[in-house]
């Protein structure tokens, strides 16, 4: 399945939902924000959001410096 991850095409091997996608991408859950097809997701919603071919996913890792 191909998704649009942060604007770039990305081949996804196993993930079937957003929670699994974050795991597959090895992103740290506690500091990652996800937007799925234009909708901002809360962390508890990740496993319930199925992933489909062509989906647009934006992820951002929070930083804290100043």
């Amino acid at each position, binding site marked *: 399945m191909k998704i649009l991850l942060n*604007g770039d095409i990305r081949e996804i091997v196993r993930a079937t939902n957003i929670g699994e996608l974050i795991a597959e991408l090895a992103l740290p859950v506690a*500091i990652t*924000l996800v937007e799925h097809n*234009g909708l*901002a997701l809360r962390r508890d919603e990740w496993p319930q959001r199925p992933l489909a071919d062509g989906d647009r996913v*934006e992820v951002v890792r*929070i*930083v804290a*410096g*100043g």
Partner: protein
Amino acid sequence: MAYKSIIDPARLERIEFSNDEIARYSRHLIMPEVTLEGQKRLKAASVLCIGTGGLGSPIALYLAAAGIGRMGLVDGDTVDFSNLQRQILHGTKDVGRKKLNSAKDRIREINPNVQVDLYDEFFTAENARRIAEPYDIIIDGTDNFPTRYCSNDVAVFLKKPNIYGSIFRFDGQCTVFAPSLGGPCYRCMFPEPPPPGMVPSCAEGGVLGVLPGIIGVMQAIEAVKLIIGIGEPLIGRMIAFDALKMKFREFKLRRDPKCPVCSDHPTITELIDYDQFCGIPQAKAAEEEEAHVPHITVQELKAKLDGGVKFKLIDVREQFEWDICRIPGAQLIPLGQLSARMSELDSADEIVLQCKTGARSARALMLLREAGFSKLANVEGGIHAWADHIDPSVPKY
């Protein structure tokens, strides 16, 4: 989305400008979106800048130039050489001075009409309410999680917008947290802080010196917009900036109806111990455990090296750090490669470990101890201590 200025019109009645001020703000006054009315709002307004570092510098400089009436600055730090690459409020002559003093001097130079309030302390649960209370807007330019949670919570409790910016390496983020204006707060996104160490600081991972210029100026723009009441505020959206790709991404943010501080039924209604909340004392305890590993001072290391005693000195920093400076006789094995390269070491040898300040080499020592090595010592204070006490020609970075 059109919205009103956050400044009560009644506060504009007594605001007047001298002819010099009219000339100073003329490029604002001739824009129909600003006019004299908007400039009055700026002069009537007050903002609190938490931190006068990388982000606080452009924020304070531009807001002062723009004609903000009153600016509070919170910082308990002194200026260090390592600040100057990005913290443009402070100059070379200010190294060693309180940041607040150099900040105030610089702001007065740019615009003497600004009232500058100085808070020579760090922003904590004990002082946050007292400090933040008089200001219209809070601007978060801090560099650590406890202070970020503290400024978020106090802004929510006092119903003030909190203009958030953060930077690391080549990445920056900016948004406006304002539950009182219908948007989410920081806790809607991150109800719990990450474990200490998961998100490295700029001191640990570095930061492009120019980067806070972009993010801090975005924060300043949002403050000006909220005050004048123009445009679309960055509420419910986060801008994520990637300097290497030179790309801005917009990211939607949503309120959490179960948010512990800004929801209708909050579980946290008072400021808390933010160091405790963010696991700082626990991390300190772990650090102390690291400090209790067998160690030698740089003076003892020097004597050992001079005395011809047979031992191995292993530097566990990264290659690029090694290229900046090294202790003669050391061998480089970066901490991340140590497990894979243990076969290069002989447990019969005495092994002395060293890094920049002693923290990574303490972890290396524990790693080797677990692997069965016993003749181990950690160089206290690392190569920085070596530069301070043994060889002043070695640069500190």
